[in-house]
């Protein structure tokens, strides 16, 4: 077995026991990424020098008898919307094409303190707006299971690198499903934590009240290990309210007995692809045999209004978040002799891609003084109803089992043709962000016996039930099997 095939726990243990060095791990992972990149194109930046010198430092510390931390020598890839000091951070956009932040995102600081090593920055939909990782200014990423298909979005690059075995874990961000959906398409584990569980400081914002950083891993134990490092309150982020709740990740148990797992009654009318429907059946059976009780809950407002309201809120916040990209202080700029307004226009016209522009325009329209009450404000009211509906549902259930998407990964180019279909496919993911809940996307197996695409489902729980969701995921992983590394066309 080659080193890049090991999981987080195995690499950290091996490096700390000095069975192999951090540099060896890094180089093997780097080799794997170089071999796959031509086909998968999951990275915007490969941080060879930064990563190898970090790995070298880990080895030096070990040779001095120091403990470099629980992630000693574990290579990681960060979605390229997380700031890395001195390493370019583009958010998948031309407007930040060569911007190197002067500071680290809190998550990256925490990972470094735990001994992790940076392998690269992952491709993503521009400013995290998209479902396919094809709105990136750096070109699309392919699904490692089928290179003609999308890896999902917007954290498609982060999912692909874990699926293809570049690294045992990566970080993505999830504003409306951007961790869970690519995890599902790529056949790995993805957690969108409770809003406030992980600091957003240094995450280039899309919809600030919806964004949440979370990890991709190839098994649930690694997920708990990484979350145990990331889940802590950050004084630099006023919406970070984790407190000591991160302790829920210290130990996994698989006690499913007596747990009530709910299906949503209102979602029954929506059709699912056969692979997803079969996975649901298989998973329900696994849950029942592990001792869980299946129940039903109702989320009528979610079913009817969540998607429309989500886009109103996300676009409204996005257009303010993206207003800072004006070419004055950093990023793409022009030497304009025609005046200030022309400069702003030129920078933004060239710097932003189509998807981003359409959402900025939508956000601008939705928040205009005459329309704001009707759209933006109304959406925030519905959001309150949605959150209430979920918490009522959780009076009768410990968690909800539902699809991540109604279909498997589409072909590259196909998904972009029908925007409305894309929006409909978000029904299972967006409401979770609107209510600030945790959602765990897990692997259930491959459709069509081993050769086909992976199929993922998700567990959604009440706020701060992240640890509980992983416990259930632990039981499911035992029953359904853990993710495996994709061939990535090799």
């Amino acid at each position, binding site marked *: 077995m080659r080193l890049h095939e090991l999981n987080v726990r195995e690499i950290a243990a091996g490096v700390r026991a000095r069975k192999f060095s951090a540099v060896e791990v890094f180089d093997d992972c780097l080799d794997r990424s170089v071999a796959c990149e031509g086909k998968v194109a999951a990275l915007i930046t490969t941080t060879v020098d930064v990563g190898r010198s970090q790995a070298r430092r880990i080895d030096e510390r070990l040779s001095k008898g120091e403990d470099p931390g629980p992630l000693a020598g574990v290579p990681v890839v960060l979605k390229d919307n997380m700031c890395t000091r001195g390493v370019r*951070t583009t958010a998948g956009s031309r407007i930040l094409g060569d911007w190197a932040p002067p500071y680290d995102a809190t998550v990256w600081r925490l990972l470094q303190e735990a001994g992790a090593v940076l392998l690269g920055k992952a491709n993503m939909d521009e400013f995290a707006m998209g479902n396919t990782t094809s709105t990136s200014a750096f070109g699309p990423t392919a699904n490692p299971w089928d290179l003609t298909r999308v890896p999902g979005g917007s954290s498609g690059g982060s999912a692909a690198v874990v699926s293809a075995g570049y690294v045992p874990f990566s970080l993505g961000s999830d504003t409306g499903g951007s961790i869970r959906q690519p995890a599902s398409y790529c056949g790995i584990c993805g957690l969108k934590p409770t809003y406030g569980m992980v600091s957003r400081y240094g995450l280039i914002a899309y919809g600030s009240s919806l964004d949440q950083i979370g990890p991709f891993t190839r098994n649930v134990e690694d997920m708990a290990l990484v979350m145990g490092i990331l889940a802590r309150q950050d004084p630099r982020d006023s*919406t970070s309210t984790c407190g000591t709740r991160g302790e829920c990740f210290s130990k996994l148990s698989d006690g499913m007995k007596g747990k009530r797992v709910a299906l949503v009654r209102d979602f029954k009318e929506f059709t699912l692809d056969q692979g997803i429907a079969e996975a649901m059946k298989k998973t329900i059976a696994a849950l029942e045999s592990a001792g869980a009780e299946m129940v039903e809950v109702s989320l009528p407002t979610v079913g009817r209004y969540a998607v429309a309201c989500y886009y109103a809120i996300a676009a409204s*916040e996005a257009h*303010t978040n993206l207003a800072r990209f004006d070419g004055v*202080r950093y990023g793409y700029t022009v030497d304009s002799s025609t005046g200030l307004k022309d400069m702003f226009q030129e920078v933004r016209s060239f710097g932003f891609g189509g998807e981003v522009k359409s959402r900025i325009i939508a956000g601008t329209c939705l928040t205009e003084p005459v329309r704001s009450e009707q759209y*933006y404000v109304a959406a925030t009211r519905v959001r309150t109803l949605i959150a209430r509906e979920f918490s009522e549902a959780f009076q009768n259930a410990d968690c909800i089992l539902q699809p991540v998407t109604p279909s498997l990964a589409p072909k590259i180019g196909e998904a972009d043709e029908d925007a409305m279909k894309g929006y409909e496919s978000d029904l299972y993911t967006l409401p979770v962000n609107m209510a600030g809940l945790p959602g765990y996307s897990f692997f259930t197996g491959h459709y069509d016996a081993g050769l086909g695409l992976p199929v993922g489902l998700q567990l959604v729980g009440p706020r701060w039930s992240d640890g509980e969701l992983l416990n259930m995921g632990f039981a499911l992983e035992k029953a359904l099997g853990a993710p495996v590394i994709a061939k990535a066309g090799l």
Partner: protein
Amino acid sequence: MSDKELTFTPVIGIEIHIQLKTKSKIFCTCSADYTNDEPNSHICPVCMGLPGSLPVLNRAVVQQGMLAGLALNCSIVSPTLFFRKSYYYPDLPKGFQTTQSDLPIAASGWLMISDDAGSPKKVRINRLHLEEDVGKLHHSASDGRLEGAETSWVDYNRSGLPLAEIVSEPDISSAREAVEYVTALRRRVRYAGASDVDLEKGMMRFDANVSMKCSDGRWGRKVEVKNMNSFRALERAIEFEIKRQIKVMREGGEVLQETRHWNDAKEVTRASRVKEFYRKFIVEPDLPPMVVTPEWIERVKATLPEMPDQKMARYVKELGLTEVDASVLTDSRDVAEYFEACIACGANPVRAGNWIRTEILRFMGERQVGAGDVPVKPEALAELVRSVDDGNLSTTAAKTVFEAMLEGLPFAEAVKKSGAVTGGLDADALAKVVSEILAGNADVIEEIKSGKDTKGKKMKFLQGLVMRETKGQARPDEVSAAIEASLKS
């Protein structure tokens, strides 16, 4: 109705921005004091609005905002929110300003002023809200304006300084009232310690909304005049605008609703050539609702000092000071506190007030220092005033002693240094001086004894000689008694 019969009533509301007194900026830990420092030397990812940076509200700003609000008789509102106010400008790093907008921390206050007829008048304060300041542009054009500038530089040192915007109701009817309102407001805010309100450092800026009501029932539209940073500019701008609007209305024209800028050098308002940006608001998602507990409000209330107008009334009523004296003594909090410390040590209020008004304020003005930096401590001044009152020190001697105290000497040493003796002269010493003086002025004594000194002038002359000889240490009544006694003997 002919033109000449028309009368116009100005309707004026004022928006004031003050910089709250805190060590650091509103959403980051950068220092709020950048005076004379290099441009862009007090900046960080947060106040620069770099991608990924997040604001964290500085508690001290909330506290100072409450303090200012309470000083202006406002009620404190909780919970409140911050909003994003969107517009584009190079000095606005995030493309929006984070502000409390219409859900302010303090609302429904008022201030008393006197109207143009001298009667008391209440000016209502709509609200006080917290917000961040933006950066500052420097243009290469000769007049410092954006138009015609080849190059513009941005300094973000100001970006993120904590501001309170205080919005009055349109209760003001003249430029004079406007100045009185802002003066009273400034004094209260400074008293409360919420802001240094230093106009020269840009800690207080004014916008005025001016419209005119005509006796024929016509209403002019509201004109917002921006860009005033001194009392004089505010007064002149309002005067100019009132005249301009009356002229337009007299000529049958319509006053347009617009934003005008005050040009301080030319003393005119000009319609703003930069079209106003379309401003929009959404809730600031990076800041949770701001909750101020009743306990916190009470704690802040407890730190609120007696306000200048209350002090003034009390000085007049309880201490017997004239209104003028009381007003001078209450103009700034440190002087009032100095005065109160002085009378707390037993000094006569009127006399202590006189000393402070003349000597202490003169010193403060000459040295440009606050009352706290005057070397003569209030206790020492009280001792001096008491000695004069008790007749232990003549006014002349007291002046010399005071000068010595200004050099930092305590009272007793200052007395010694100035050669004065307190407690008057004892009877023997006085008798000695008197007999010396009388011996040297036999001719004068002769005149008195012969009954020629009907007006007592000669007597006064002798007294004066004694006083001079004793360097003012003798008590005048004792001196005249001693002289009379000698003459009779």
